[in-house]
């Protein structure tokens, strides 16, 4: 039979975790540190706002850009949190999660053959979205020794006449690393000089520890060069609501809206109403959840280091990204054997790029007792397999 799917898709490899997912689904008693979402339920007052809205009949489309009330709240939130001014009428777009925002951002700025520079390892959708837009992902290696920072000099060295943008996640999924503002400023400097746009995925932006949240767009002169992508999934435990946003210049938001209006049309209405409630009064609950992640972070990092899996202290998101090199196994071997022998699910670092080899991603968005039990099982596993 003649091939019926687009050749473009052949360039995108299948997800590195598919076989693990199938394995786990058939097993009982697995402790999962493989999830990329909060284990908390959406705070009840946010859910209740959506329930009330449904009772009142808010079940229709909203405007393409999203409810004006939400965009106004968002504009006020970005002002009070980052001191950034975005016009709710022209510079904000409500999307179906950051995932859609990322796709729109890439498609709005990339012509076929354009290159997008991004770190390796990075969130799996980054290279995939660029490939879907017939662009070319250019992955710049980052290393554990350097806490997976993306050096501005390496970014500059990767620039070619075809380079259109730099795509970064701040804080990083999968490593939990947070680049210091001085380092980001160096990248901003490169972007400004070489006239590159920066797509800044800030979905984990509020999940930072021992520091204040900030945004790439806060860097001097960067607001006009930055497409800021944010959302409600992680900080407000609202993954299934599918509400995100993009903040950028009028020209870019107009281009993104053009695609959005013909594809998604608008983000889910009840999710938008829940997001309004989250912005208005979700902060205390978000803070409580972040404090709990922080407690778990200390436990998991200490536990991993104690068993000899070197782990730098992640300063954002809810992932630890320890090295498993001391076991002599590859990331995939480690993840698969750990699952089969001790029923603990983690994600092999290679799912996020070649530079993830030698690492696993452990999500600590799970109960303290699960973390405790998972660490005990992992310690037993590492002790058994470490070469003498």
């Amino acid at each position, binding site marked *: 039979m003649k091939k019926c799917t687009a050749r473009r898709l052949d360039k995108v490899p299948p*997800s590195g*975790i598919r076989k*693990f*997912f199938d394995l*786990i*689904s058939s097993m009982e008693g*697995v402790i*999962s540190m*493989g*999830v*990329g*979402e909060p*284990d908390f339920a959406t705070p009840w007052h946010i859910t209740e706002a959506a329930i009330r809205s449904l009772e009142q009949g808010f079940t229709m489309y909203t405007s393409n850009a999203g409810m004006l009330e939400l965009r106004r709240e968002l504009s006020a939130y970005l002002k009070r949190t980052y001191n950034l001014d975005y016009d709710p009428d022209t510079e904000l777009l409500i999307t179906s999660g950051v995932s859609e925002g990322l796709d729109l951002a890439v498609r709005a700025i990339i012509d076929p053959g354009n290159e997008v520079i991004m770190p390796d390892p990075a*969130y*799996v959708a980054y290279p995939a979205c660029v490939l879907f837009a017939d662009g070319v992902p250019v992955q710049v290696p980052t290393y554990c020794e350097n806490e997976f920072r993306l050096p501005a000099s390496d970014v500059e060295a990767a620039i070619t006449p075809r380079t259109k943008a730099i795509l970064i996640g701040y804080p990083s*999924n*999968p490593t939990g690393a947070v680049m210091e503002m001085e380092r980001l400023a160096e990248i901003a400097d490169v972007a400004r000089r070489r006239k590159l746009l920066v797509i800044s995925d800030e979905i984990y932006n509020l999940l930072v520890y021992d520091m204040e949240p900030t945004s790439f767009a806060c860097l001097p002169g960067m607001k006009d060069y930055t497409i800021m992508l944010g959302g409600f999934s992680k900080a407000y435990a609202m993954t299934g609501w599918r509400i995100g946003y993009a903040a950028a210049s009028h020209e870019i938001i107009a281009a993104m809206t053009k695609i959005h209006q013909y594809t998604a049309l608008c983000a889910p209405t009840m999710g938008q109403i829940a997001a309004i409630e989250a912005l208005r009064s979700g902060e205390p609950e978000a803070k409580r959840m972040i404090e709990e992640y922080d*407690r778990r972070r*200390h*436990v998991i*990092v*200490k*536990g*991993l*280091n104690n068993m000899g899996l*070197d*782990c*730098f*202290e992640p300063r954002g998101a809810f992932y630890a990204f320890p090295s498993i090199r001391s076991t002599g196994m590859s990331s995939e071997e480690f993840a698969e054997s750990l699952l089969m022998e001790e029923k603990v*699910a983690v*994600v092999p670092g290679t*799912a*996020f790029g070649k530079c993830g080899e030698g690492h696993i991603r452990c999500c600590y968005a*799970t109960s*303290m*007792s699960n*973390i*405790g*039990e998972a*660490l*005990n099982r992992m310690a037993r596993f590492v002790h058994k397999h470490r070469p003498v």
Partner: protein
Amino acid sequence: MSGRLETRPKGDGMRKILEILENDARATPKQIATMTGISVAEVKNIIKKAERKRVIVKYKTMINWEKVGHDEKVWAMIEVKMQPQKDVGFDAVAERIYRFPQVRTLYLVSGTYDLAVFVVGKTMQEVASFVSQKLAPLDGVHGTVTHFLLKRYKEDGEILDAGGEDRRLPLTI
């Protein structure tokens, strides 16, 4: 390359351990040690001390009996209105009431009545007999109102039918 240890104020270790045990009485000292960063020996020591001082009163399992089959037990909540007594207030009568083995829980409450008594029996008749023959005739008891429990939805913070399971997929990126 090593993780930073949380510095805890003195006494916080005990609180952490108690919180863990309150949520899961089966948590082992080893698990608790991993979760708190306190040594296994110290965890055991703190637990022993808490048991001795009756800070830990009892280890209990919450059962949803309705799921096992039909519940042979009948529960009732009885409002008791009473006359406080000189010097001892409500305490003397309360003590007489909580000594009855049928009484599972007893609270002194504010409002239109004084004591909330939770009683368990095999049948409604047995509970009714307890109220009419043992509780109501006590000196100082002015009146009782008996409410039989029809269904337990939530107890001690736990939703009995739905709570607990993690609805997330086991692996996502």
